[in-house]
């Protein structure tokens, strides 16, 4: 590797960083607008035309805010933690292709690389929780670690099943393999597991118990302010985008489109736009879930992960592997997978796996109390 190559690589990496920063800015606005629409509000509408410049105002405000270091916090760990959360999330992007030729480095084990690197970001949350010297931050950090370790298993298993189906860990080859049928049709169960476990990995709203405001205030981020706090949120939105992009690449056929009659650069631009449209749809679903589902309780979260998602992911892998091994037609995976998806929804709906019954709060109607009181009075 010589000097110009290193400079070129550095330039490409900074271009990628700039692209991701722009996407994050757009996502913050899009999320606020989407949530506002769900809650019948207008959302940000003061800065710029219909609030379009709101993210820039937010960024400016966050960067000029005072950075506070708690007196008893561990200085080094406290300052390194935001970087330890952001860096693994960014390193994943080295191998994610956005179109056929738009990628920094197409690794043969790209998918495996992504799983290996993404695991490291838990460390940053733990460091933030411990370094803040705050009991809420500590509890939040431990919750994050417990949650992420639990949901990593179904997440990686769903990815492995895709690797088995495509017979490759190379993201480009996986997308090429979906030219006819996207894997979402072949593995509906896998898509469900991947998206749910991915949401849990992100710590987004149905699964955001590690920074649940009503329980642990802000979790690991409670002592952070200004620029360092914004790095955490930058990482969170970047990871949201990553999960959406991965869902499109692994399940929805990436940049494959029904008709693209162009060639050369025009085709690249067209397939990139098609890819981004699919990604935007997945992101909208993620925002939609956030706007409509309440937060899970921690025991519900754990039992959902271990008793539903982990067995389902094992079934998914077993099913895919056995169908490929016995050279059965691929629609067998679809049918059986749909059956198990139905069973999964049945178990969720039934709620028999929700765990600790004695901790649930029962709501008593005032009429019931009155009836009980009158019964006592009669006795």
């Amino acid at each position, binding site marked *: *590797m010589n000097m110009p190559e290193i400079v070129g690589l550095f330039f490409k990496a900074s271009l990628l960083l700039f692209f991701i920063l722009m996407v994050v800015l757009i996502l913050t606005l899009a999320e606020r607008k989407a949530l506002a629409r769900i809650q019948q509000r207008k959302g940000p509408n003061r800065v710029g035309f219909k609030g379009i410049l709101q993210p820039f105002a937010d960024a400016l405000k966050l960067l000029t805010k005072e950075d506070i270091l708690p007196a008893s916090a561990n200085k080094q760990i406290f300052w390194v933690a935001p970087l330890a959360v952001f860096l693994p999330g960014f390193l994943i992007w080295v191998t994610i292709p956005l179109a056929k030729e738009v990628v920094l480095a197409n690794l043969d*084990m790209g998918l*495996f690389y992504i799983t*290996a690197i993404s695991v490291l970001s838990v460390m940053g949350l733990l460091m933030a929780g411990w370094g803040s010297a705050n009991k809420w931050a500590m509890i939040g950090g431990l919750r994050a670690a417990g949650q992420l*370790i639990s949901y990593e298993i179904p997440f990686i298993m769903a990815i492995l099943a895709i690797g088995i189906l495509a017979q490759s860990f190379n993201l480009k080859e996986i997308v090429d393999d979906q030219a006819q049928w996207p894997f979402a049709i072949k593995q509906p169960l896998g898509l469900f597991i991947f998206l749910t476990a991915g949401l849990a990995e992100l710590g987004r709203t149905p699964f955001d118990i590690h920074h649940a405001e009503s329980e642990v205030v802000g979790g690991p981020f409670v002592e952070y302010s200004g620029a360092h706090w914004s790095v955490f949120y930058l990482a969170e939105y970047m990871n949201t985008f990553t999960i959406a992009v991965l869902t499109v690449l692994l399940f929805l056929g990436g940049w494959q489109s029904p008709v693209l009659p162009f060639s050369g650069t025009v085709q690249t631009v067209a397939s990139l736009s098609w890819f981004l449209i699919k990604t935007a749809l997945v992101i909208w679903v993620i925002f939609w879930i956030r706007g409509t589902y309440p937060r899970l309780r921690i025991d519900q979260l754990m039992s959902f992960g271990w008793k539903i998602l982990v067995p389902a992911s094992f079934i998914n892998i077993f099913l895919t592997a056995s169908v490929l091994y016995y050279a059965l037609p691929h629609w067998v995976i679809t049918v059986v997978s749909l059956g198990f998806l139905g069973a999964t929804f049945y178990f969720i709906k039934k709620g028999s796996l929700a765990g600790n019954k004695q901790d649930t709060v029962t709501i008593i109607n005032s009429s019931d109390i009155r009836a009980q009181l009158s019964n006592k009075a009669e006795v």
Partner: protein
Amino acid sequence: MSVVFFAIAAILVISGGIGVVAARNIVYAALSLLVAMVGTAGVFLIGLAEFLALVQLLIYGGAVVIVILFSLMLTKIQDFEFLTANKQWPIALIVAMCLLGLLGISILVEGSATTTMGSTNISELGLSLFSDWAIPFELASLVLLIALIGAVVIVRRDNGEDK
């Protein structure tokens, strides 16, 4: 160029290792372990063993160090003060030296092989893992199973007989 990368990885491994042994704060020691593990992954990467490097990151960096930190943070730091006044260091030194000698001898006997650049073939790796090396592989999983059962036993003893 690879010399520079090797130097970086080696510095990570050595400084991380020294940190694990010398750090007075037990959480620092665990974080130093992570640094050493990442450095080891870097060394694997220079040896063109990409798969091994990623497994190193996933299992040691991701799982083992996080579980160690998790359990450390649930305890009081004061409980670990005896660790800084360790009386067993001569034994540890002897064991470490023996391991170093073993590695040195094996390198002298086998000679250092030069690997050529090439992409790792995952399907070949899987085939040899599940045919030639099936028994060691299954034994390794048995070790994990024993650890899991041990954890369950410890938890149940604390909980009493009510479940």
